[in-house]
């Protein structure tokens, strides 16, 4: 083999030459939209309170800059290292979930209705956001080690056991949204790993029985039960929960085909939708940019998920495929559960919309996920 040709070939395969620019472009577009929406949702209230109307948008922008560093870091590191250290990552993640429950170390909303976080200076770090990525890496490593064409029951059992611990901890958080996301990630990765259909069906049945049991016993709190069932029967729930859903529907519905125009949303400006800059950020898009804007935003997410699936397909090894598929599942389910909740076809659970919802950890975790995807994409030839 010609030396020159070999070098050229090696040059050709350098990871830096295989960045998924399209994925970066989508990420950038989502960030810009996110900043615009956060500004719209918060500026009026801030101005009224005598604060800088850009306060929240600025903070979000700073977080995004940090996110870019996280992205670069993860893209620079060969993702295969992560497979080696998957065990450590898993244990560290479980430890953070346990620590955040300890009073004095972790904090939570006094009402006990929000996720738990670590207070780090001005930032709140919600470990459950990283748990999802940690679990994706862990399960990717486990599934990649399977030598049989299809995972055996033992393999599935192992996967489920590994998933059950963070799922239980997050669920007790209480954080039903992340629980749903974890479940979807596990299912998505199992599908891609080639789990037999009948095993998947059994799994689904077990899941359904589990959910029914959870509802029957007092494992979930009343406010959660209410929020979860609000979208099915809006008459039976308390005024607060119905208000949340009603205001959200009014905001999105009143946007109409073309929306009321940026910064002209009545619901948005007047602070009618609770949690509007975080979990209900989609209402701003729905009200101010209308059906056309909302569909365009969904299309951005569709491109993001498509890019992730494409990377799973292009990945050099099964570990890369599983991780990318896990990330695709994560983005897809977060988007679906969040937007579905806002427009009343999914239960009300606290789950952020990737890149859009205000909140540091969610943004950082999303950037980390894109970083992982880039790492896989860049190293598909090496």
């Amino acid at each position, binding site marked *: 083999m010609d030396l020159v040709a070999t070098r050229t070939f090696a040059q050709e395969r350098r990871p830096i030459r295989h960045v998924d620019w399209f994925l970066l472009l989508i990420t950038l577009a989502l960030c810009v939209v996110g900043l615009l929406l956060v500004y719209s949702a918060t500026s009026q209230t801030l101005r009224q309170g005598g604060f800088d109307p850009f306060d929240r948008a600025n903070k979000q922008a700073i977080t995004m800059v940090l996110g870019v560093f996280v992205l670069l870091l993860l893209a620079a590191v060969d993702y295969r290292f992560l497979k080696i250290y998957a065990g450590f990552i898993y244990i560290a993640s479980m430890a953070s979930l346990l620590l955040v429950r300890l009073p004095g170390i972790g904090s939570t909303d006094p009402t006990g209705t929000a996720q738990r976080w670590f207070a780090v200076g001005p930032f709140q770090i919600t470990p459950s956001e990283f748990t999802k990525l940690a679990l994706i890496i862990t399960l990717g490593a486990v599934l990649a080690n399977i030598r049989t*064409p299809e995972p055996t029951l033992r393999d599935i059992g192992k996967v489920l056991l590994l998933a059950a611990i963070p799922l239980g901890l997050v669920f007790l958080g209480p954080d039903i949204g992340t629980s749903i996301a974890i479940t979807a990630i596990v299912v998505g990765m199992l*599908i891609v790993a080639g789990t037999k259909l009948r095993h998947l069906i059994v799994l689904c049945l077990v899941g359904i029985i589990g959910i029914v049991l959870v509802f029957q016993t007092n494992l979930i709190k009343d406010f959660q039960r209410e929020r979860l069932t609000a979208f099915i029967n809006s008459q039976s729930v308390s005024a607060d929960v119905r208000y949340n859903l009603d205001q959200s529907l009014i905001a999105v519905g009143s946007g109409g085909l073309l929306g009321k125009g940026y910064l002209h949303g009545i619901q948005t400006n*007047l602070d009618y939708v609770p949690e509007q800059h975080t979990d209900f950020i989609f209402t701003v898009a729905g009200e101010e940019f209308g059906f056309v804007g909302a569909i365009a935003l969904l299309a951005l997410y569709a491109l993001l998920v498509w890019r992730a699936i494409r990377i799973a397909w292009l990945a050099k090894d099964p570990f890369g495929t599983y991780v990318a598929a896990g990330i695709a599942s994560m983005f897809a389910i977060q988007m679906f559960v969040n937007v*579905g909740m806002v427009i009343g076809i999914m239960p009300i659970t606290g789950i952020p919309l990737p890149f859009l919802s205000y909140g540091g950890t969610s943004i950082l975790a999303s950037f980390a996920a894109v970083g992982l995807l880039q790492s896989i994409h860049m190293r598909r030839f090496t």
Partner: protein
Amino acid sequence: MEKATSRLRVLALLVVVMFLALSTRLWFLQVLASQGFNKEAHAQSIRTVYTDPLRGQILDATSTPTHPVVVVGNQESREVRIMPSELGDQGEAVVLRVSQITGVPVKEIAKTLQDPKYLPTQAIPVAEFVSKKVKFDIAEHPEQFPGVSVQSTFVRSYPLGTTAAHVLGYTGLIDSTQLDDWKKLGYGPNDIVGKNGVELSYEQYLHGQQGVTRLLVNSDGDVLSTVSSTKPTPGDDVQLSLNDHIQRLAQKALLAGMQHARSYHDQNGDLLRADAGTVVVMDAHTGGIVAMVSTPSYNPLWYERGATAAQSKYLNNGNIGAVNDRAIQLAYTPGSTFKPITGLAAVKEGYASLSGSYDCVGKYTHPGDTSGAQFVNWTSVDLGYMSIATALEKSCDTVFDAFGSDFYYTWANNPLGANADPLQGDLRQWGFEQPTGIDLPFETGGLIPDPAWASDQKTLFPYGWVPGGDILTMIGSGYVQVTPLQLARAYAAIANGGHLCTPHVVDQIIGPDGSVAKKIGGDCDQTVPYTADQLSYIRGALGSVVTGGTAQCAFAGFPLSRVMVAGKTGTAERANKQDTSWFASMVGPNPDKPDYVIVTMVEQGGFGGQTAAPITRQVIDGLYPKIGDASTPSCVTTDR
């Protein structure tokens, strides 16, 4: 990895299903159901605040911009208001303090605060007309009175009290019927509106336009900005044709006359009760009401500020009927005051002639009637043949009875003919049996009995229409019912040459800028079919009633040569009651063109010449103060 490709497709398919579900739902929300949501969004974010306009005043006829005579005005009231949401945890203590300082019982304040008609964000008025001291005390100790404020507001004032209550009316919270009718005009459920009298009939002028401020509010109810704001437009002032001075005078005369009447005995030897009455003074040429007194009366403030138990009992007592305007809302048997009008009908139909003479017998029997029914005159003596004028002067019933027989024959000979009952038709031409159309609410029409009516009254007329029906109608007796105002309007037509004017108490509407926005009244287009000569003849006859007839005593000593008075007394029988005393008259310096028509009626007042005529003389003394001698003759008469 071949297999992974197909599995990734499965994953992609699941994602596509998710996007389809979201898109479908968004299409429904934002395109199909968007309008409804849009409406909801606007309803909750714009709050409309209304500022009540200052209600227009009611002025008397003599009022001028420089010398206003206000008969209904607006009075400033300092109101103590409590904002429940700002009371905090010391609500009870604050209410107790407010009670101590205002004198309003704690219980009452608590009840007001819980009244569901107030919004929780509203300052609720708990005491009105508080002193300046209360205002300062509350202002100086904000820590003792959190959420309590004293604010000036305007309430209605009625300086005339009971004097013209029926004409002026009163105001109150809009009721559901009014709201339904006036919603289109912009009225809301908390509006104070006219409930009776001019306050009601001129509501649309008096009310004014509310100021509307549209505020942008957020979900906490905080006001962010003002979207639009219009100032309230004060209501128009309403100037009456009613003269405050004459009104007071007429009321005084009526009350004094009734008092005086209670010292007389009726035919049975009982003292007259004279417990109710009315005086209507009307401009004979325009229909403008100069005075309209009805007694017993009430004070409009009882409705405005709440009545005591005794006042409520009085107002609700149907036997007293204080709420009824007796000039327009109740109808009475007119008695002999009807004769000039029925007499003209007899002339018109050819049964009588102004140049003829007719026998005034003591007892009249309908020709051919063998039932023994007799119609007696006030004296059993046959007064002999006399003219129509003399029959009016002496108030001879039997002359008119005979004309009644003629009317009856006309009907009996051709009951299904085109003009089978000409008497009733002629009377209706004077406006009887229908409301006059005066600008006051709840007017009644009265009754002119006719064969058709009789056929429905099986107990009163078991055999249908009978001669007595026409005979009694001729003398204003039987079942005829007229309102004093209808009678005044008919007499005005006699006075003014045959014009039936639509009566009115309001002359003009004056806009907030002081200019006349609208003229009211002056509708005299309807006429009665009698010649000037015929009407002049009747006026002359009515003049002789005063100079030499049944009202002679009442006007003894009155300078009739300077101010002509012409009128007709009436004494109407009434079931289970003493006789109704009437005097319907016209008065003025020019005998051919009298200025005013005055109708006085006193329930259970006895003879017309005895009670109603002297009251009328008192009113005339007031109308012509330099001419009248203000004497009050005692007239005990036996004629009707």
